[in-house]
Structures are given as C-alpha cells and as structure tokens.
C-alpha cells in the first residue's frame, strides 16, 4: 500500500475503534431505531389490513407491504444510516482545528469515517436480513439481486453523505443546523417512500418526484431487492449527477466557509 492508502486505512481502523468504543451505545444506535420503527410499522399495517391476507392496498398485499418495509429498513441502514455527522457543532466549538493542522484533509478524515461506518452498517444489515429470514418474515432474494441492491445502496449512501456534509458545512454561517437536518430527514422519509410506498401518492406527484433525488434514495433500492426494478441504469445516472453537483457545492462552500472559521476556544 502506498502512503496515502495507508493513511486512509489507518483512519478507517481508528473510526472502527471509535464507533465500537461504547458497545451498548453502538448496538442501540445501529439496531434500536430500525427495530422500533419496524415493529411500529408492522403493527400499524396489521391494523390497517385487519388480518385480511388477500386484500390489496395500492397494489400491495399485507405480505408484500411487510416485505416492502423490511427492505425500507435495510435500505435505510445502508443508504441513509450515516446521520451522525455533526459538522456544525464541530465548527461552532472550534473542534475542526486539529484536522486543519494534520497533513490529512478534513474531508478525507470524514470520508474515511463514512467508509468505516458503511462497513459496519452492511454487516448489521446482513445480520438483520439473516435474522428476519430465520424468523420466516423475509424470503432471501437471489445472490445477484442482493449484490445489485447492495451496490446501488452504497452508491446512494455517497449522495446521502455528501448531503449531510453540505448541511454540516452551513455551520460556518449558521450556529445550529440540526433543525435543517431533521427537516431533511422527515422530508426524505415521506418523499423517498421510506414511510409509505410511493404508489400511494397521486401519479402526477410521483412523476414530479422522479425529477428529484428522493425516489432513488429508498423506493428504487427497495424495488431492486424485491426484484421489481428494471431502470437501474437511469437511476445511477441521476444519482451520479446529484453527487457531482453536491461535491462541487461542498468544495465551494468549504472554500468560502473556512475563511470565516474563527476556531472558537482554539
């Protein structure tokens, strides 16, 4: 490995030790919300379907609806799991100073952390899928389908990371950005199909949504895992466009923002 690759690798390892330093916290953080969410959804949809196995709602049987939400949870873990990035606080409290001195760029440091986090998330997802399959709540799809879905999810997670990074960088101007991040998360939940399948929305609205990045974040990958998606190419194209756009925006915002940084408290 060359020197640069070694820097990345060492940072990823450090990130792993940091993420797993508090074991209970780690398990709760990774598994807790997903499971709570899933069981709320399970009970909610059970109540809506009223125990009727044959009824169709927006084209979904009860079983299909539950499968949809299991995949929504898995996609959430892999594609949008990285929400802990609190750059705004680091900027406000002057914590980024250290990274400005080390000969390893600030974005490199955070990207390495993101990569480390993604490995853990993939592992968690694999365990979750396995458990749900053992509980016969889920039929495990073919290996090819899993690979296609996973690759796509990881690609989308790059978009999500870049977006989180962008909201974080706004901390150079705003003192707090958590409300922005919460709004973003709630909006994403509804518009990406994570809370209810997009099939429930009016067709015109869904057509409009297709011009935004939202459906490609959750609805598309769910459909990939469920074996019902055949426009992966265009989805990759659209997401690639957004990733490049965000990357450029982050680059510019960092260049402008760092001039305003005061390193409060050093």
């Amino acid at each position, binding site marked *: 490995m060359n020197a640069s690759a070694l*820097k990345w690798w060492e940072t990823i390892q*450090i990130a792993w030790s*940091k993420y797993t*330093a508090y074991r209970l916290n780690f398990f709760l953080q990774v598994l807790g919300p997903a499971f709570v969410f899933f069981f709320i959804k399970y009970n909610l949809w059970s109540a809506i379907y009223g125990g009727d196995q044959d009824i169709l709602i927006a084209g979904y049987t009860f079983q299909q609806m539950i499968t949809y939400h299991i995949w929504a949870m898995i996609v959430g873990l892999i594609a949008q799991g990285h929400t802990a990035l609190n750059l705004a606080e680091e900027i406000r409290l*002057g914590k980024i100073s250290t990274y400005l*001195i*080390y*000969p390893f760029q600030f974005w490199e440091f955070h990207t390495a952390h993101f990569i480390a986090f993604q490995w853990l998330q993939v592992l968690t997802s694999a365990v979750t899928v396995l458990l749900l399959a053992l509980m016969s709540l889920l039929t495990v799809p073919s290996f090819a389908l899993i690979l296609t879905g996973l690759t796509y999810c990881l690609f989308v997670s790059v978009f999500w990371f870049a977006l989180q990074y962008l909201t974080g960088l706004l901390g150079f101007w705003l003192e707090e950005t958590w409300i922005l991040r919460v709004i973003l998360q709630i909006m994403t939940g509804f518009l990406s199909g994570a809370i209810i399948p997009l099939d429930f929305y009016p067709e015109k609205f869904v057509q409009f949504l297709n011009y935004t990045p939202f459906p490609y974040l959750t609805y598309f990958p769910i459909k990939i895992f469920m074996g019902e998606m055949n426009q992966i190419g265009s989805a990759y194209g659209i997401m690639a466009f957004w990733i490049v756009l965000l990357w450029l925006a982050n680059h510019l915002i960092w260049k402008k923002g760092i001039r305003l940084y005061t390193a409060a408290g050093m």
Partner: protein
Amino acid sequence: MISAKNLTKQFISSKKKPGLLGALESLFYREPVIKNAVESFDLEINQGEMIGLLGPNGAGKTTLMKMFTGIIVPSSGELKILGHEPAQRHKEFRKNIALVMGQKSQLWWDIPAMDSFLLLKRYYEIPELEFKQRVTEMAALLNVESLMNIHVRRLSLGERMKMELMASLLHSPKVIFLDEPTIGLDLVAQENIRQFILDYHRKTHATLIITSHYMADVQALCQRLVLIFDGKKAFDGPLKTFETILGNDKIVSFQFADSLTEDAALFADFSPVYQEDRKGVELKIPLEKLRAVTSEALEKFDITEFNTDKMPIEKVMKTLMTNPQLLKRHSL
C-alpha cells in the same frame, strides 16, 4: 523562517441585549461589532529561536497562533512560515509544524494514546524505525511507558498533557507552537514538561513559540520575548532587556529580629515600604548600589532574612498589565 508583515485579523460579532426582549430583537436586527484582534503585527523569527509570546487575556496571542498554524485566515497583511503561506495549508507546511494546546485535547478521547500515535505515524509518514525509537525515547523521558495503552479519557490532566506533547512531536516538526502547555498542571508536572521541551529543543534545534501566563515557563524556556497588548506588538527583545524595561532597580526585602523604632536613614533613598509591625522593609535599589547598601544594612541591623527578586519578569509583567501606559514610554 517566520516572517509577518502588517498582519491583521478582524473579527465581526454582534451585540445582543439581555433578556427576552433582547433575544426577540436579535432575531431581526443585530448590531455588528468589529474588533481588531491583531493589528499591523510585524515579526521576524529565526530558525532555532525560542520565543515567548506574552500578553493579557484577549490581547491576541491565540489569534496570532491560529494564524501562524493556518487554522484561521488573516484579514490582511503578509505571513510566511518555512516559505509557505500558512492559510494555504499546504501539505509540506503542515508536515513541518506542530501545535500543542494546553486547553484543548488533540488526542481522541475514546481510544488509547498509542492508537492515536499510530494514526499520526501514517499521517506524517514517519518511518517505522524512527517512530519506534521516538516513542520509546519520549515515553521514557516523560515517564509514561505504562500509560500508552490506556484510553485517553481515563488519564489525568498531567498524563494527558504529556501524551499531547508526544503526539505533537512524533514527526520532528521544525516549528512548534505551544499554547499554554502547562496550564492547570501541578508544579512537578510543569517542571517535567519544561525540562522535556528544553531537552527537545537542544536535540533538534526546532523553532518554538510559546504562550503562557506562567512566568516560570517563560523564564525557563525563552530567550526572547514578544509582548502583545490589545492586538499590537508592545515589546520585542531579549528576556534580559525585558527584565530591566522598567529600570535597573532590584527589589530587596529585609526582615529584622526586632521592630525598627524609626525609619532608617540608610533606606530613605530607596523608596522603603515598611511592614505594619515594622519588622520588615521592601526597597528598590539600583543595581550598582545593591552591594554597598546590603552589606551596610547587614552590619547595622539584626537581619534574620534577606531576599532579592527571584523573578523580575513576573513583576515587570504585572506592572505593565496594570499600567499599560508605561509601555508607550518604553516601546520600541
């Protein structure tokens, strides 16, 4: 090596009135306040110098340090360190500097110091053999061999500070910035840290810039002082010159076995300040008369104790901080 010309940094903040009304008002209008944290600062530092950067709280020392290390961008002026403009944060520049902050931890809390060192080894591309050698040597000097694998958050402040120092010096930086490296440490730990820094300087001939409120640090480490008041340079010269900036007088105090019944004629010319019980007196004696006056006093009175100022800079610093106008008279 380090060259600053007309260096200026402005901070813009906003005023907020107190209370609920003030809070509501601040939602719509905030009065901007512009402050020159550092103003038209000139400085030349040569390779291998050890400089003490002194000044009261809020004078601009830390702002200067931040500009020197490239953490913040100067508002105007020129700054060159090792041939680089720090604000560009060039990799070559970053590889050759270090910053030690007494008030802030640079190590990661949740992992042992050794893990942080290993990461820094990669960042600074330190060869394996050199790394091992340096870690062993520094750990022995600082007496922290047994603490390397303990989570940083479990270390005491003194232990952590030693680790911080090690972390900052692993890559043998050419320029080291130390921002209050001994703050909050006990006397023995302070002494250890000072010894270690001196030792390091002797071996490497690195350039050191130190800020501290402990004059003992300055006395032990710095040959040259730069004083900053209100963002502007107020003094720049050798420690020796600084000690005599307010005159060559020595502060001498005598304790007597018995109370003096009347003021002694011998002391009259040296602005004597008597203790309330008249068992002691403090005098300001010009250096050239010191010998004569003390020997005469020892002869004439039954003297039990006799002291001269151990740390003249502390006195000078205190006097200047309470009477900054004195500086104008003595400034460059």
